[in-house]
């Protein structure tokens, strides 16, 4: 290895302390910068740009998003790519809205990507969607839930594989109403204090009120909070009938762990959830009633094949975020194959005809033309009794798909009245 002396030039540079400190500060902001793509786009390849948070409280989910998209691209390339052209995948850590925006910009200018896939944070998804719209590139959102992204902030270049908050709320809400946790009950909300949480809390309150429940408190919890004891003491003070989490990522893990630690007896659950959150809480600690967009126990042949391929490649079952990025890459590839084009106008035109898409679930899904939301089945999960748990991944009992077979899939999606979307011209 070539010996490069880095130390002495730095030491001898008469830099002021403060400027170096500023440098360190800037480095903090850039923390977790992903590896820059080394492979440049070539004429005979199509480059997919992938962005998702790998650091911070959503980082654990982002890691699965990357695995999902990698597996999809590998399978697509093994099957001949897109009309003979191989897919070249570039992936980076989106970090925060500002960084996400500049990285999306760079993908488009440097790598000439026709599509950007990924994201989990609703705030970063909004930032990427603005860059995508300005440059006329398709962005498929695989993890940002806020209704506002499909409503107020919607745009023609953005598609949503991830369910909207309303889909989550209506899916698990029906189960809560069935279990008598809403009508005439007092509900205590804990809400993640950023775009996603605020949006979810708003949608959930509308649903609870419409179904005869009362939201008695809504506590905003900072996204970097790890200690929930003060909030749990407040829950106990309020003596509600039901405790509801509108939290996100690691927050939910800590909430569940500490809820069990404080031994609170009120039934609890939430309107947003990811499998990894339960895995982090662990056996005997996980509890409650939660919505789920996809789960590795979904009993369809396509889903089982995906799980088997994922376990083979990564040695563990896929988290639902892996499903989102996998399905997104597959849908985009299919649109490119069928339209023989990578132009945004052609891809959008294809999806807006609402073709049925295989999304590994019992019923096929489609991107709704007026807001570009993937209309699909949702699920609910509850804790599996400790004695029946087989391994560390097997903590949940998957409920039946929502809505039931006789109801239209759009029944749980936001209506135009609830979440109007007009694409900017």
């Amino acid at each position, binding site marked *: 290895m070539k010996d490069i002396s880095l130390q002495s030039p*730095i030491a001898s540079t008469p830099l002021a302390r403060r400027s170096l400190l500023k440098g360190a500060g800037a480095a903090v902001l850039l923390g977790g910068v992903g590896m820059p793509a080394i492979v440049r786009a070539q004429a005979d390849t199509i480059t997919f740009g992938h962005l998702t948070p790998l650091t911070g409280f959503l980082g654990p989910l982002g890691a699965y998003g990357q695995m999902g998209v990698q597996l999809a691209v590998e399978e697509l390339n093994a099957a001949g790519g897109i009309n003979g052209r191989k897919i070249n995948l570039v992936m980076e850590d989106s970090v925060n809205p500002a960084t996400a925006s500049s990285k999306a910009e760079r993908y488009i200018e440097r790598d000439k990507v026709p599509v950007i896939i990924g994201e989990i944070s609703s705030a970063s998804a909004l930032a990427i969607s603005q860059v995508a719209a300005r440059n006329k590139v398709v962005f498929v959102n695989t993890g940002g839930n806020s209704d506002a992204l499909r409503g107020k902030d919607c745009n023609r270049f953005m598609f949503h594989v991830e369910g909207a908050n309303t889909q989550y709320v209506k899916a698990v809400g029906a189960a809560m109403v069935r279990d008598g946790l809403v009508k005439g009950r007092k509900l205590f909300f804990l809400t993640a204090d950023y775009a996603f949480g605020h949006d979810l809390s708003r949608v959930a309150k509308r649903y609870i009120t419409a179904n005869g429940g009362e939201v008695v408190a809504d506590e905003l919890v900072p996204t970097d909070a790890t200690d929930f004891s*003060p909030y749990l*003491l407040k829950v106990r003070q309020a003596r509600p009938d039901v405790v509801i989490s509108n939290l996100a990522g690691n927050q939910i893990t800590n909430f569940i762990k500490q809820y069990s630690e404080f031994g609170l007896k009120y039934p609890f659950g939430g309107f947003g959830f990811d499998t990894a*959150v339960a895995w982090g809480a662990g056996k005997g600690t996980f509890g409650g009633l939660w919505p789920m967009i996809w789960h590795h126990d979904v009993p369809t042949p396509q889903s089982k094949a995906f799980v088997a391929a994922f376990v083979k490649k990564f040695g563990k079952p896929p988290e639902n975020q892996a499903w989102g990025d996998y399905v997104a890459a597959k849908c985009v590839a299919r649109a490119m194959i069928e339209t023989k084009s990578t132009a945004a106008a052609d891809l959008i035109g294809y999806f807006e005809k609402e073709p049925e898409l295989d999304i590994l679930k019992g019923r096929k899904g489609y991107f709704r033309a007026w807001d570009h939301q993937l209309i699909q089945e949702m699920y609910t999960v509850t804790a599996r009794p400790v004695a029946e748990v087989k391994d560390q991944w097997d903590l949940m009992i998957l409920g039946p798909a929502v809505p039931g077979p006789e109801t239209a899939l759009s029944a749980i999606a936001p209506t135009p009245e609830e979440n109007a979307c007009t694409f900017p011209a």
Partner: protein
Amino acid sequence: MPLELVFLIEQLLNGLLVGVAYLLIALGLSLIFSLGGIVNLAHGGFYAIGAYIGVQIGNRFGFPAAFVAAPLSVAVIGMVIERLLFSRFYRADPILSLLLTFGLAMVIEQALRMVFGATPIPFAIPEFLKGQVFVGDFIYSRYRIAILAVAAAAVLGLWLLLQRTAFGRVVRAGVQNPDMVGALGISLRPYLTAVAALGIGLAGLAGIMLAPISGVHPAMGAEILTAAFVVVVIGGLGSFWGVVLAGLLVGLVRGLTVYFIPPAAEASMYLLMLTVLLLRPRGLFGERILRFE
């Protein structure tokens, strides 16, 4: 007692307990900085390593084994890091050691991510500490009371070590005037190693203690480090009780804000720091240490 007051007191006590958890990390941070002049940005990383080692040992040999082994192994790692890395930077521009530990923090976080994955690892409270303690209207988690006891013992032990032993006398003298200590024919080298091992071991202890409460994931160190720094800054450099008081104060102020103005919970700690720095630039009990002025 009116119920409202009970809840307020409950929040205050809870805040104090949370503050004690910060203390274990802040004291080590303060100790290493006071003696060697190294701002250890990797301190949170060692806290995370403590949690991960604790989980690995705990799952095989039970919690008590992890409780003993995790801090010890982290202390040994700290000793190695001190010998190999820190020791080269004691006399250098503090910026260099800042860069070193900053890099180290990122290496630790990324290494944990590569080895154990990015997802939080489950780690439960041991059976014998599960459950709650009720005193009238008060409720508290039994495990957190155990944390309080351990942390209090650690703080007391550290204080006795620094105040009542020959070792402590040399360390305290070294903080004030390392050159004079050298002139008296005492080499600070072994003391610097011991103090780094002690401080980093305390971070490891905090890691295993807090692992069952806050999730075990690669970024857990970065989460707690900021709070620990704030505690050190408020408490003042070189002051043992200043840091202790600051830890409790930060916890208390946080508890109060969550009770009265929840959205300001995170900001409260920084506002407190700002106020203290405006009134007392060296922190609450900060001593004037010439070489750091």
